[in-house]
């Protein structure tokens, strides 16, 4: 009665042996390749593992992990960076609750990462118990935010407003502080550094460049020849030169074109360069989205009697921007990696801190491999999971499926 009747039921799922035969040893040269590949992988892994656990000297990293996170930000004011982190994680949780699967992958990744950081065994005195506890709060705060975000009365626009307020508050109020303030004493940007600067520059770059990029994209498609010409000129010039030249222009050349008494903060100048660079690329991405809107949409809106301005704001842009969200996320990831170049103009980002640690301690002179590998791993983890999250976002948005 147990009818596994021959040839009638669905084919049984292939067993492990079947899978191996089909995917690894289907013919003689595939078998050869598999054996060759397995040998290479085996020896590479063995070498890497022995190096990481036996040969490598991780002191330059473990001696001051906080340096890599926040640079020389005064340790007694560290709670301010911590508060900023808590605010962000809470909002990430809320976004997860409100926008569900669009943000889910990212929120979960962030929670896991911070959780791991909190309990990571490091024999160092700088990571004190309060800091670990602080880190450990974050995953729970994400979950709390998620529960709050799921409440009926919380809407997307509330969360968006909160994001806007937070993103203004952190870099303008909480981190820099004020002169003569006892609660938030002034912390000059010269001591900011590490991952903090990397994140500020990349998030600030993408957020600030977005409106400029949208305007440039509209300008490039405009029917006004002068506006079109300016937009094309800006976009093509910026895209035609390396990022280093643009950063360099803002860090050195810009001062020559401003009134001689004006001084712009170093970090702000780097941010300006990042924004200008990013805006040109955003413009091209948004233009791609604009081109994908069928002309019938505009014609229909015209038939309804909408003005050009309203057609753009109400019909074209909302559809186009939805299309380009995944591209913008991809652009953010590459901007995140590109911010390492600010090291060349003398900003202490993650890479700059790494070099400072190497150059200031004579005992670490031969330990470049360890430091750069550590930095590479940080970038790798962030970029990899952000691209994973952006893939999930793309699936959730259903871009390319219509």
């Amino acid at each position: 009665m147990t009818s596994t009747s021959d040839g009638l039921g669905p084919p049984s799922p292939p067993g492990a042996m079947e899978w191996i035969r089909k995917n690894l040893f289907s013919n003689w040269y595939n078998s050869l390749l598999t054996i060759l590949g397995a040998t290479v992988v085996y020896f590479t892994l063995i070498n890497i593992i022995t190096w990481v656990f036996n040969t490598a000297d991780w002191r330059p990293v473990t001696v001051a992990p906080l340096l890599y996170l926040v640079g020389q930000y005064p340790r007694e004011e560290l709670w301010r960076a911590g508060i900023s982190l808590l605010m962000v994680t809470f909002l990430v949780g809320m976004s997860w609750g409100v926008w569900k699967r669009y943000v889910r992958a990212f929120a979960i990744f962030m929670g896991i990462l911070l959780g791991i950081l909190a309990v990571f065994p490091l024999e160092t005195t700088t990571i004190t118990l309060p800091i670990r506890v602080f880190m450990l709060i974050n995953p729970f705060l994400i979950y709390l935010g998620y529960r709050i975000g799921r409440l009926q009365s919380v809407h997307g626009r509330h969360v968006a407003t909160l994001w806007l307020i937070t993103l203004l508050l952190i870099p303008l109020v909480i981190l820099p502080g004020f002169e003569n303030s006892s609660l938030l004493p002034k912390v000059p940007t010269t001591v900011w550094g590490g991952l903090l600067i990397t994140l500020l520059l990349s998030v600030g770059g993408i957020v600030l460049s977005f409106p400029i990029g949208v305007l440039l994209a509209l300008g490039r498609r405009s029917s006004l020849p002068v506006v079109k010409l300016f937009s094309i000129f800006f976009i093509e010039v910026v895209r035609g030169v390396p990022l280093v030249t643009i950063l360099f222009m803002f860090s050195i050349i810009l001062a020559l074109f401003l009134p001689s008494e004006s001084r712009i903060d170093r970090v702000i100048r780097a941010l300006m360069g990042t924004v200008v660079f990013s805006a040109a690329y955003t413009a091209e991405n948004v233009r791609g989205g604009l081109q994908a809107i069928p002309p019938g949409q505009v014609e229909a809106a015209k038939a309804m009697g909408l003005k050009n301005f309203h057609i753009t704001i109400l019909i074209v842009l909302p559809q186009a921007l939805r299309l380009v969200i995944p591209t913008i996320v991809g652009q953010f990831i590459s901007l995140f990696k590109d911010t390492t170049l600010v090291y060349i103009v003398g900003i202490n980002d993650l890479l700059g801190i790494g070099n400072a640690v190497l150059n200031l301690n004579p005992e670490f002179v031969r330990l470049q491999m360890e430091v750069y590998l550590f930095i590479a791993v940080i970038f790798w983890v962030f970029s990899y999971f952000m691209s994973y999250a952006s893939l999930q976002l793309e699936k959730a948005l259903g871009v390319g499926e219509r």
Partner: protein
Amino acid sequence: MVTDKYFHKKTPIWRDERVLKAAAQIISSLVVFGILYWAIGNFLEITQQRGMPLSYGFLDEAAGFPIKESFIPYESTMSFGRAVLVGLINTLVVSVLGILFATLLGFLIGLMRLSSNWLISRIALAYIEFHRNIPLLVLLFLWYFGVFTRLPDVKESITLPGPTYINQRGFYLTWPHLSERGALFATSVAAGIILAIITWVVLRRIREDKGRETYFGRISLTVLILVPLIGWFASGGEPLWFDVPVLQGFNFQGGLRLTTEFAALLIGLAMYTAAFIAEVFRAGILAVQKGQIEAASAVGLRYSQVLMLIIIPQAMRVIIPPMISQYLNLTKNSSLALAIGYQELFAIGKVTINQAGRAVPVFILIMAIYLAISLLTSIILNIYNKRVQFIER
């Protein structure tokens, strides 16, 4: 009459589209030129205070700084213009070689990624994910400080066949030079290439017009090999001599020396870009519809013909545009050489700024050169795109 009132009323000036458009353009140009005017005014004031006029006359003055690596003769007594030229050539050399290696490696990794063998495909994926998620600058530092500065010193050089010696000071390669009678051989190589291209084009056109097989591939390949071979024997069999690096005292003499900076930049750039090219290549192959391949097999083409006549021509349409933009990225990314000390265009520009004290002219020159490279490439790309586009109905 209501209709009359609405139809015959003249459009007020603030709602006339032509007026509005003109006003928008005038206002935007006023804003842009106003900012420019203000900035240039500031600039002129500052330059007058410091006494560094905006002119390119300094390009003829003696540079006064050495350049470690140059593919054309250069001394520090030569002009700034010459130094910038050296930088440009250094950029072009590393870019062209980088593009060559990146394409070959990217092609290989892309093939591995498409392999039906699970392990090989995963190895390729690991390579791609490793390179795509780490900043290029960090990769360059890893190569330069992590690998190349840790090479053995001169006495314990790594010896590779060739002979090639690798040590802390660089790579010493055996390098061919033309001998006295080598000119004949060089001419025959050039003639072979030109003749092969002509044969290819002519025979191919004949096949397309007449529809009969002309074996253009095989015949032009034969020409390509045969003509230089004749040149080889005509020049007495020894048109080349090899400059072999020899250890003399504390260093190697002779041969072709590549600095470790150059090698680190080249390898870092090529391997980084290869990861992106592999993905471009894979996407291109996957973009060819399966039905095309099945249809081609159904009409009886051999697999090699399917590959050459069906898959590659269609994949190329998809591959070439992003590939060119990767090439451009590589060229622009070569400016990161500044951080590891290979003196290409941007690095030399920076030294020139320090030496000549003319930040703005040098800077405009450097940006103009990069822009020219980019624009030239986009023009070529656009021409190509127009030629291979599907003719849409």
